[in-house]
């Protein structure tokens, strides 16, 4: 068996274990840090699947900034998780039905790594063969991100901007208004 596939399998198994720990943990501090470990493992997984740009974005933004935000919120709200959960039976039924439907859906998907899968025959060959002439950057991900699908990136910037405004409005000082 290929060593990359073996690494792939073990990383996926580790991710499942980490999420089981995440479900069982009571301390919010532990939960936030475990979430960081989960993101970092997924970044490793992205490297084995050739998505290096995604891997370092996930490691920096997913494992880094998200953990900082979570820790900041926990510092404000307190660490201990108080009350018991809701009933466990109904959520379990829901996730088993949803999961079974999704697994039934994957049976039609092309096998992992298949070069003849529909996703690889549509627009991707154009990006790989023509981007040297059309854009001139060796990294195809960069040329697609900044040029072919530049509008997506513009949309992304708008989303970040809106979120930043929302956060500032929510956390800004409301003392002055309250006194009126």
């Amino acid at each position, binding site marked *: 068996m290929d060593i990359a*596939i073996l690494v792939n399998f073990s990383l*996926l198994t580790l991710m499942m274990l980490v*999420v*089981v720990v*995440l*479900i069982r943990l009571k301390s*919010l501090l532990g939960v*936030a840090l475990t*979430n960081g470990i*989960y*993101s970092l493992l*997924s970044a490793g997984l992205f490297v084995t*699947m*050739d*998505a290096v*740009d*995604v891997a370092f*974005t996930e490691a920096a*933004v*997913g494992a880094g*900034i*998200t953990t900082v*935000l*979570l820790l*900041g*919120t*926990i510092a*404000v*709200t307190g660490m201990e*998780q*108080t*009350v*018991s*959960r809701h009933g466990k039976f109904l959520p*379990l039924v*829901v*996730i088993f039905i949803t999961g079974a439907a*999704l697994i039934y859906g994957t*049976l039609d*998907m092309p096998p*992992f790594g*298949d070069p003849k899968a529909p*996703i*690889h025959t549509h627009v*991707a060959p154009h990006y*790989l063969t023509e*981007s*040297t002439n059309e854009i001139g950057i*060796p990294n*195809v*991900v960069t040329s*697609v991100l900044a040029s072919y*699908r530049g509008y*997506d990136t513009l*949309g992304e910037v708008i*989303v*970040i901007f*809106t979120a930043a405004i929302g*956060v500032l409005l*929510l956390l800004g000082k409301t003392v002055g208004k309250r006194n009126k």
Partner: protein
Amino acid sequence: MIAGHFNYWVVIVLMMMGFYIVVSDSNLIKKIIGLNVFQTSVFVLFISMSKVKGGTAPILTEEASLYSNPLPHVLILTAIVVGVSTSALGLALISRIHRAYGTVDETLIHEQDETQDEA
């Protein structure tokens, strides 16, 4: 069959565990973390689809001729950043809720609302 679909099935297991945290846990911060788990599993699904056996990272060089599909990588790059900004907004809402109610537990917030309605 098992090796060909193992990634997809693990993704679905991770997705459902994230979903379980969102539905079953009454702590709002933990719900956000459940959403994060769900979201990252979707990223893994997309990147799994982009992998080509024997291919390499889509950076054009003389040595390589087979590359993985760059398009899902771009979509997921966008999704990661959007995901962080939505969790930041959610966490800001949570700390605002904490300021108003003194707790981040759904059940306790609901109880406070009920007693206020009666009063």
